[in-house]
């Protein structure tokens, strides 16, 4: 990422200024700090696609209290860092999930609950559900189980936080790199009836507008 403060590296201009003033390592330290802070403030939009939605209220309320780890629920995808897809996805749902995911600001992450998004689960031979979600959207963390208990969901949060802290390549970066691959797969199952992409960089429309 060349521009933007949100990427895996800091803003290019800022980096140059650090180097000019003889602080070559400062941007690395800053980057680490940014990643640490980011990992401790994950805003979640919980998209209850299947039965796993029932595990989210105990995860976020007083019994298991995900907020002590900086994981908070929000109302809309535009405010969220993480989307939780909790179960099987019908084609109809997938269409809306793609829309929701592309509305989210970067950096954005996907966590799935249960075995259905991995291999179809017990709905593997249904005429209306997808089998492998990672063909259509990049998944960061898959929490297995049918359904996973809140402890497992919290374990998934911990894993995601570790990955953010270590600066590993996240799903949204893969989505940008392999955009054609994902769009092709989405069109294959959704039959071309797909909403216009949100992947438009509104601040750089002159340079083609591709994010």
């Amino acid at each position, binding site marked *: 990422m060349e521009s933007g403060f949100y990427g895996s590296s800091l803003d290019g201009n800022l980096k140059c200024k650090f180097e000019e003033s003889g602080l070559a390592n400062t941007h690395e330290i800053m980057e680490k700090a940014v990643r640490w802070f980011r990992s401790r403030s994950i805003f979640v939009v919980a998209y209850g696609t299947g039965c796993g939605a029932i595990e989210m209220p105990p995860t976020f309320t007083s019994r298991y209290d995900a907020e002590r780890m900086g994981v908070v629920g929000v109302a809309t995808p535009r405010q969220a860092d993480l989307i939780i897809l909790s179960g099987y996805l019908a084609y109809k749902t997938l269409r809306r999930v793609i829309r929701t995911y592309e509305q989210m600001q970067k950096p954005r992450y996907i966590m799935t609950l249960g075995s259905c998004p991995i291999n179809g689960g017990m709905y593997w031979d249904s005429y209306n559900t997808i089998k492998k979600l990672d063909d259509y959207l990049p998944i960061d963390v898959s929490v297995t189980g049918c359904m996973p208990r809140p402890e497992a969901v919290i374990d998934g949060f911990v894993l995601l936080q570790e990955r953010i802290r270590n600066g590993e390549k996240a799903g949204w970066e893969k989505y940008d790199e392999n955009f054609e691959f994902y769009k092709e797969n989405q069109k294959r199952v959704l*039959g071309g009836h797909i909403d216009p992409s949100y992947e438009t960089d509104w601040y750089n429309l002159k340079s083609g507008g591709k994010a």
Partner: protein
Amino acid sequence: MDLASKLEKLSLELVQKQDYLYSVTIDFERLESLLLSFLNEFGYITLDSINCRDDLEDGFFTITYCLQTEERDHVVMIQTKIQRENASLPTMHTIWPQAEIMEREMHEMFGVDFPGHPTLIDFALEYWDNMPPLRRDFDTLEYVNSMNPFREQRNDALDAKEEMKKKREAKKAAKLKAQQEAEAKAALEAQNNPSDEVKNEE
């Protein structure tokens, strides 16, 4: 039952299936007039559901209308058969408003046409252009495999039966070894301290 005598006048038979469940079988031609007389004359004001069964081998759909009176103490099923090819039924949404959505679902899942129905559009599916999915000649498995291929298996997958066998054998061998060691140890101790036995004898 009162209804049975009323139906006898129409030369129809009321069959009791369970305590609360009765059924009437009727030709398709007389279906609409019978449904109307159930509502207006016999007082069956509620339409519970309209169901469809695909009898592929015999080449027809079996349609079931479930009706209830105000007392809600029993259900009457009115069954009729229609041809599978170009299946068509009279719409009941003008009489029972809830029939609109039931008929819409049946149209989507079985391809039954309802002339005069106002909203025969997508219900649960979106942009479906294949055969209606609940018809039995729709090959679900083939469709699923063409749309969603299986995930490739991991290469390190092991055969569970053989692994368990190996585990059991290893356990057995370990047990045997421990036993032998214990015996050898006991023998060695006995050799080193023969005084113990002597003491015991004393």
